[in-house]
């Protein structure tokens, strides 16, 4: 396949198991948390892939593996054709310039003792992109104004800014190295409704302006529907459904996706009055000891005997629409 048709990012059979140990001196392995248990997906250049699911489903760990903040237990992560899953620290340095991250919490992800200007200049300095201090500060001012902030904010400390402004600083920092790919890990979840829309629009503008590719990790399905071309739904370390956004939200096939969508109330009393709704029962089981077969079977309204024994693989039920459920035809 040529470089043009090749996805920018391709994840194959990714697993991330965290060991659980006991004992203070002689650490004994007593189990594993299967945070990610074999997932496959691809992200194409210029697209936004949404990764949704509830807490503990492995969506954040997936992002951390792609950023290589974790070393995956198994599987391959091809970035622009090169497997980065096993890369060593030194080799990763070059990758850091190409893949960046925006974190959820604009309060804890900015160093409170650094001025905004220094926060933004640091990556430029560390990577030796602009050794000249005056040019660096010009670049900082440019980054601030690209993200809708007054360049004078360079002299402020994070605590002098509101949550929405801080998140813009977090975005500016991610852009500082001119990356191609940005992992947005719950990037708008901590913001108030009126500010959230501003930041969502900013992310869209930046994607167009700089030709960025996003992996957008979130639990807020309404934002994901708005922002993402394709969406993958995770449950207990596995992808259960993956499709185009409008297809997934308009025609969800996996019983978990259906339950998830039904659970989200729509801001319209008339629509809500006409919806009949029974919430899915039970809670997400522990990833230390996941259920046998299909991990969703204990909560699934469609489950049959076979679901307890065999794990359904993700299969293409119609063009571009993948589901991991044996009961979906």
């Amino acid at each position, binding site marked *: 396949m040529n470089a043009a048709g090749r996805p920018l990012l391709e994840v194959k059979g990714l697993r991330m198991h965290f060991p659980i140990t006991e004992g203070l001196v002689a650490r004994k392995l007593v189990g594993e948390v299967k945070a990610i248990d074999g997932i496959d997906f691809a992200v194409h250049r210029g697209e936004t892939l949404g990764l949704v699911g509830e807490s503990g489903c492995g969506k954040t760990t997936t992002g951390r593996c792609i950023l290589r903040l974790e070393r995956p237990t198994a599987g391959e992560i091809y970035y622009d054709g090169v497997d980065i899953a096993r890369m060593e620290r030194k080799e990763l340095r070059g990758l850091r310039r190409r893949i960046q991250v925006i974190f959820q919490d604009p309060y804890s992800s900015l160093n409170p003792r650094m001025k905004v200007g220094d926060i933004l200049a640091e990556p430029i300095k560390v990577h030796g992109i602009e050794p000249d201090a005056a040019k660096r500060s010009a670049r900082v001012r440019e980054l601030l104004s690209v993200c809708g902030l007054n360049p004078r904010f360079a002299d402020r400390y994070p605590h002098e800014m509101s949550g929405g402004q801080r998140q813009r600083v977090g975005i500016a920092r991610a852009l500082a190295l001119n990356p191609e790919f940005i992992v947005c890990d719950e990037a708008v979840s901590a913001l108030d409704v009126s500010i*959230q829309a501003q930041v969502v629009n900013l992310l869209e503008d930046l994607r167009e302006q700089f030709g960025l590719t996003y992996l957008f990790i979130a639990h807020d399905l309404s934002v994901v529907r708005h922002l993402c071309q394709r969406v993958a739904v995770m449950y207990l370390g596995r992808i259960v459904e993956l499709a185009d956004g409008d297809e997934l939200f*308009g025609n969800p096939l996996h019983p978990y996706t259906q339950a998830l969508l039904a659970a989200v109330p729509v801001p319209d009393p008339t629509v809500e009055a006409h919806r009949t709704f029974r919430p899915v029962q039970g809670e997400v089981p522990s990833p230390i000891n996941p259920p046998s077969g299909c991990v969703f079977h204990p909560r699934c309204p469609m489950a049959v005997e076979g679901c307890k024994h065999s794990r359904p693989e993700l299969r293409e039920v119609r063009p571009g629409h993948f589901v991991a459920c044996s009961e979906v035809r």
Partner: protein
Amino acid sequence: MPPLLEVKGLRTEFRTGAGIVRAVDGISYTVDPGETVAIVGESGSGKSVGALSVLRLIPDPPGRITQGEILFAGRDIMRLSGSEMREVRGGEIGMVFQEPMTSLNPVLSIGRQITETLEQHRGMDAAAARKRAVELLGLVGISDASRRLKQYPHQLSGGMRQRIMIAIALSCDPKLIIADEPTTALDVTIQAQILELMKDLTRRLNVALIIITHNLGVVARYANRVNVMYAGRIVESGPAGDVYHNPRHPYTMALLRSVPRLDRPRQERLDPVEGQPPDLTRLDGGCAFRPRCRFATDACAESKPSLLPAGVAGHLAACFQSGAIARETGEAA
């Protein structure tokens, strides 16, 4: 029928290093027996402080209720003694807070936390309280009650803890439950379970519910009436359907337009509320929303608009321009 709760001109202030912050600035509303009223607003709008004031749970210093009346079932809450107030809290008014891990006592068993309330408020003996606790757990959908009663909060999931909070809130047959962001810390499917449970129980037991939230979808699904707060004031109030379909305040209108909707395909761009939320230490005599408002006129800088009837009966808005807004939303509809 008189309202169960009537709040009149409530004002709560905090003395801070940056000056006096009027977190709640003269709010008035009522709650009828058995109805669900939502209070919606963003961080710093005063929605939580307003509700905590009703329970007189504002720490003094730095906070103080400086004005207003709170009538609950015909009694003025502001005039109750400390011990009478303790009877009301957890007795006639139950509470459910956002973070069940911090609102449950980590060193007491679940059983003890439920029976304590019953012994304090209902004077039950240990055996009767335990029997009632088992019943309550069944009511909130927790099976295997005898085992659960021996457990501690850290052994339970977030959803389970919030069920325990609801059981405690219901334990003394309250007339009103105040729930402050009861599901914000929970996952979507668990959030739906807890909200359905609260709706079902409040209807069955005829308990009124004040639900404080920032989630416009939750309001649409569960509330009969809604109060929208901005910078310490109620800017719009009315039946949920009217407020959502015919908003008469520019903030409500902008807020509803800014949220992406799950039931609609991708649109071009979101329509955000521009500007930043107000700094409560720097409010002037005019309307606090004015810097972000596209309808603002000179009159908006001179005085704060009061909450006046707009549209159908029971629909109120605090805006000088609500007529113009009605025309615009009317055209759109």
